[in-house]
């Protein structure tokens, strides 16, 4: 399989203010958010990043989206270096995170056209893509309503459509269901399932073990900025875990139940393994 994403020795440090340093009780005003992380992802694969809050997942995602520059190391997105060819990287990826918001003053229709233009799409291609995505996500009914008047779910649908306006081959989603109600979360998970079916390469960061277990071919566990484990779900869990069939209803279950559901098959769950790794790495009891 073709390597679509190669991350090599990625390191990112942030300078802290005195106040932040005191809060974190660090000897130096510098924190290493990502520490020499390497992994790769293949074409058509869903790669999941798992880790506690502050582990460095979002920083890695932002580096891949070229919003942050690494202090050392590099990442190749479909052969393009994020350091040397950031614009080409941005042409290839679709990036979505809850932190990226749509402008309240515009309608989804206007914003779609705007981002299509920035992606260099001609009007005909943009109109065709809009028909397709607005139909898929049911945006037509509120396409001409200003974002400020939309519900959270409608906004997320519009954000989804806009983040993939240019039909990218690589989709990078950072905790896309974080903070969403179950109905809206379903829109996101349905989209991921369909994208996987279409053969898109997906890099996904989430806290939902069930989603990772059932959607991802391979998983990377990030703890304290370091890659604590990386491989297929099976290789990480250490024994074959019977996966429920891929459908959105499974993911929409409360995450805890999903993983417990997996234990019914007799093996260790991803959640169990994750906490084992976490305890070993940090020495903290949970």
């Amino acid at each position, binding site marked *: 399989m073709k390597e679509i994403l190669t991350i090599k020795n990625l390191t990112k440090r942030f300078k802290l203010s005195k106040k932040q340093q005191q809060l974190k009780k660090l000897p130096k005003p510098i924190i290493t958010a990502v520490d020499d992380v390497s992994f790769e992802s293949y074409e058509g694969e869903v790669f999941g990043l798992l880790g506690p809050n502050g582990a460095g997942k979002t920083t890695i995602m932002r580096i891949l989206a070229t919003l942050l520059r690494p202090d050392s190391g590099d990442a190749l997105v479909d052969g393009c270096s994020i350091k040397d060819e950031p614009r080409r990287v941005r*042409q290839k990826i679709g990036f979505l995170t809850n932190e990226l918001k749509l402008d309240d003053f515009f309608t989804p229709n206007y914003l779609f056209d705007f981002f299509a233009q920035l992606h260099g799409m001609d009007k005909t291609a943009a109109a065709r893509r809009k028909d397709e995505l607005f139909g898929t996500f049911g945006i037509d009914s509120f396409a001409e309503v200003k974002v400020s008047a939309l519900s959270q779910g409608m906004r997320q649908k519009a954000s989804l459509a806009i983040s993939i306006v240019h039909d990218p081959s690589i989709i990078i989603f950072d905790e896309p269901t974080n903070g969403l109600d179950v109905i809206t979360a379903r829109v996101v998970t349905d989209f991921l399932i369909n994208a996987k079916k279409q053969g898109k390469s997906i890099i996904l960061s989430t806290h939902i073990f069930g989603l990772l277990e059932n959607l991802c071919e391979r998983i990377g566990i990030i703890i304290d900025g370091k890659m604590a484990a990386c491989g297929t779900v099976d290789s990480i869990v250490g024994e074959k875990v019977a996966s429920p069939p891929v459908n959105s209803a499974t993911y929409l279950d409360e995450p805890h139940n999903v993983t417990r559901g997996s234990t019914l098959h007799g093996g260790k769950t991803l959640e169990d393994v994750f906490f084992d790794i976490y305890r070993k790495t940090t020495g903290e009891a949970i």
Partner: protein
Amino acid sequence: MRNNVFTVMKKECSRIFNDRKLFFTTVILPGLLMFVIYSLIGTAMQGMFDVEDDYEYQVYAVGFPEALAPLFAEQPLHIIEISEAEIEGVKQQLAERETDVLMVFPANFDELVAAAAVPAPNVQVWANFTRNESREADALVTSLLQEYHRGLALLFSINEPTDEAADGGYNLASEADIFGMIVGMVVPFLFMIFSYTGCQALAPESIAGEKERGTLALLLVTPASRRDIALGKILGIGVFALMSAVCSILGAVLAMPSMLGAGLATGNIFNFYNAGDFVLLLLVVMSTTLVFVSLLSLFSAYARSVKEATSYAMPILMLVMVMGFVGMFIGETENLHFFLIPIMNSVLSIIKIFAFDANVLAVLVTVAVNVCVALVFSAVLTKMFDSEKIIFDK
């Protein structure tokens, strides 16, 4: 590249055009208010100082000389002769703003004048300047007395009306010259303030607001270069800041006839200047607006919120006002070095254009300097958009 600049610029413009309230309050309202307020002030001031046309001034006089009677009879003056004993009573009336003027002539005034007495006889003219009629009557009787005085010792005359120059006709300044001088004193400074405040209303919202709402990052993950985004934003805000500044200046200029009370026809104002003057003025105004927009954009990008960006804008406004004042004090100058200083160069150029003394080279230097400064600022803004600390510092 050009497409992306245009696309971002179009979005900025759409935002303001689509928001009717924002458009009205930032573009139309300042100009409208300027016109209404200045017109009202002008009308009120004229009303405050004017005396009704058919008013006859009440003039109390002690020892009013016969020789003056013909001169005073030609004016709307009602002379009421009183005795010395009544002086204090009339003064009291003056203090209470109940009458207009009291003239006190020394006894035997005519004889003393004829004998060229030393010391010369002194005529006292009492008035109360807080009463319009009293102030005007004082000016009138004083001028009549001076005229009588000149007639007595006539060695030469000054500005006697002739066929060539009627009353006041010795002043060769045209209506346009006077207008240009006054507008040149008022408008450049007003323009600085209006143009800056127009930018101030839009730039923080456009950049710091996008940062605060998390919409800027979405823009930054598109293939559009940071430079295109920075330029698009600056030009988009610039279009509206320019419209706002032009509306405000128009409001101020159109209200000028009411302010000056000079009987100027509003339509004439636009005949004073030719197309070339307007082109030069527009170039200066546009380039200055670009400086303001790019400068405020820098501070807006640095700020974490719209509130913080607005607080940064105030000290810069003070700086702009100081530069504007200095430019006004320098006034009309041919020294090109002054035109190398941003903001001040705009004030100097506008003064010269309004004073019908436009120096094309100076204007071109002004525009070139301003465009260079705006380009440097936009390059810095581009760098700032690349800085993760700036973009994610909340």
